[in-house]
């Protein structure tokens, strides 16, 4: 059996090598830095317009922090030699979406308007990863101002396909072996959708689980920060380090998370299946892939039951909440005219923010009242199951080409039905509005060789349950271990 190249190893495998002394953090960090600099060297033009190609590169990285990374790795090695191992992440290099502030390292929010912005502080997540001994090596590309439907990075499985948004750089780099693990953010799908398009494992934590202090806000009442990796366990290990109460974030929750890497027996656990979303794909092969995953859990003794989810105007809720909050957040960019420097694809987005500034407070509060009712109903449904599952997206990644602001399905197999307002599948929309955790895991490939993935959603603060489903699945399958080949397929 061929050994896994070091850059494709999971967090656990990298940590074991470091703990045994088979490799030093400096060696591991240099390996990732060299690989990133060789295969995907920044700078790419900012802002990152959706482009058909970057000369065969992925454009996953905005800034490589080489000097910073090597110094941090050196410190990690010295501590390891003195017997101090801060956490399982100690000495492992990671990349973070370029909207989390990093002291002395530019943080652009994916926009040319902020190409020279260099913060003098670290985001809370960076502080926590520093304290855990992890090594910050790169700032990852994203849709400008965390725009959700454009990918700045290309998809390593096929360069003409979207890697979605907005955490596209982080997820593409994770599956391409350019970083040890990654940090993404999600408002309405920006971790799980891009993770799904490239076959990464990515976890959206419960709202409030991870402090957003020092992270660009897009929507105060919806934003979440979460881990991206090459396995569900990677996500658990990273979440364990980045979660925790922070008084600097008004929504921060005091609910510590301790990760258990053994899922235990799955017998008797209950899995709700939002069958409607499984039937959305027009491809028989895709349907079989999704059904095989359900059958595997059933064979472990999991009780698999079809469920239905309530009908709510989720697109209208998202649109209202995000545009009103973003309109407030980005008001200064609109007022001083610097929004004109946004890239052309985003012109309608800036107008949406301005329209959000004009909405009445009453309409905004109505949206938050409907959301409250939806949250209660969703919590009640989730309380009957250990987790609920649906395809993260019913088909493989769409084309990079967009129509009406939305990527065009590669095989024209699927058009979002009316009740999928905004093109957002229902489980994902509800889970994001209700603040439920969701884990994306790969479960196969479509007829074009593009990854297909499932999203496992759990009750608030029960990330362990969704990770258990993910780990138990990945212990029996190897979809999460299959990597895109370099040079990336055109």
């Amino acid at each position, binding site marked *: 059996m061929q050994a896994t190249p070091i850059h494709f190893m999971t967090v656990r495998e990298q940590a074991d090598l470091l703990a045994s002394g088979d490799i030093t953090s400096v060696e591991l960090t240099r390996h990732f830095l060299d690989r990133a600099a060789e295969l995907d060297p920044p700078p790419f033009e900012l802002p990152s317009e959706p482009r058909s190609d970057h000369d065969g590169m992925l454009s996953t990285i905005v800034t490589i922090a080489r000097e910073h990374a090597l110094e941090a790795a050196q410190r990690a090695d010295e501590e390891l030699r003195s017997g101090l191992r801060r956490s399982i992440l100690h000495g492992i290099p990671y990349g973070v979406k370029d909207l989390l502030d990093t002291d002395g390292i530019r943080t652009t929010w994916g926009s040319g308007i902020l190409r020279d912005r260099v913060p003098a502080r670290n985001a809370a997540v960076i502080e926590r990863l520093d304290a855990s001994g992890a090594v910050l090596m790169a700032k990852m590309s994203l849709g400008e101002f965390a725009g959700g439907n454009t990918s700045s990075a290309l998809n390593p499985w096929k360069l003409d396909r979207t890697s979605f948004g907005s955490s596209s750089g982080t997820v593409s780099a994770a599956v391409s072996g350019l970083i040890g693990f990654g940090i993404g953010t999600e408002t309405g799908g920006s971790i799980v959708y891009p993770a799904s398009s490239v076959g990464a494992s990515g976890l959206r934590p419960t709202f409030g689980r991870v402090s957003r202090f020092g992270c660009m806000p897009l929507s*105060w*009442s919806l934003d979440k920060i979460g881990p991206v990796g090459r396995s569900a366990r990677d996500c658990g290990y990273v979440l364990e380090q980045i979660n925790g109460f922070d008084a600097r974030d*008004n*929504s921060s929750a005091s609910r510590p998370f301790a990760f258990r890497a053994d899922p235990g027996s799955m017998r008797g656990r209950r899995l709700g299946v939002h069958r409607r979303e499984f039937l959305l794909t027009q491809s028989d092969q895709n349907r079989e892939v999704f059904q095989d995953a359900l059958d595997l859990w059933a064979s472990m003794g999991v009780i698999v039951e079809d469920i239905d989810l309530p009908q709510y*105007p989720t697109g*209208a*809720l998202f*649109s*209202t909440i995000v*545009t009103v909050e973003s309109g407030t957040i980005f*008001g200064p960019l*609109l*007022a*001083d*005219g610097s*929004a*004109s420097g946004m890239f052309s694809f985003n*012109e*309608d987005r*800036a*107008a*949406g923010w*301005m*329209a*959000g*500034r*004009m*909405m*009445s407070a009453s*309409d905004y*509060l*109505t*949206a*938050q*009242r*409907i*959301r*409250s*009712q939806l*949250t209660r109903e969703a919590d009640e449904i989730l309380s009957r199951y250990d987790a609920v599952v649906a395809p993260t997206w019913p088909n493989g990644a769409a084309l990079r080409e967009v129509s009406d602001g939305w990527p065009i399905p590669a095989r024209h197999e699927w058009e979002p039905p009316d009740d999928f307002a905004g093109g957002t599948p229902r489980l994902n929309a509800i889970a994001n509005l209700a603040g439920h955790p969701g884990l994306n895991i790969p479960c196969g490939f479509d007829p074009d060789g593009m990854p297909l993935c499932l999203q496992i959603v759990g009750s608030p603060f029960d990330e362990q349950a969704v990770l258990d489903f993910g780990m138990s699945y990945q212990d029996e399958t190897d979809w999460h271990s299959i990597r895109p080949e370099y040079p990336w397929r055109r």
Partner: protein
Amino acid sequence: MTIDRRHFTKVAGAGAAVMAVAWQQACAQVSDTGDVTADTVRTLLDAQGPRGIYDDPEEFERLRRAVANSARIANQLRAFPLSEDEQPLTVFRRG
């Protein structure tokens, strides 16, 4: 020019009222005709603060479409059946 507190309250209150009335007008126009007029959008734009990039006619037209879309969405949400006991999800928390 200096203004006293009473004058300031009056001006600010008038601004807020203009905004609220213009927004209701936008919602009513969308409900009646499916679209919103440039005049209504201009009133909203001036009431919210500096015009920024929206002096440009192309940008303004983009904004007009966005306002029509937001008004359509607001009408949709207003029609959603809600219990009078339902409170909004807000962040304010003590302890």
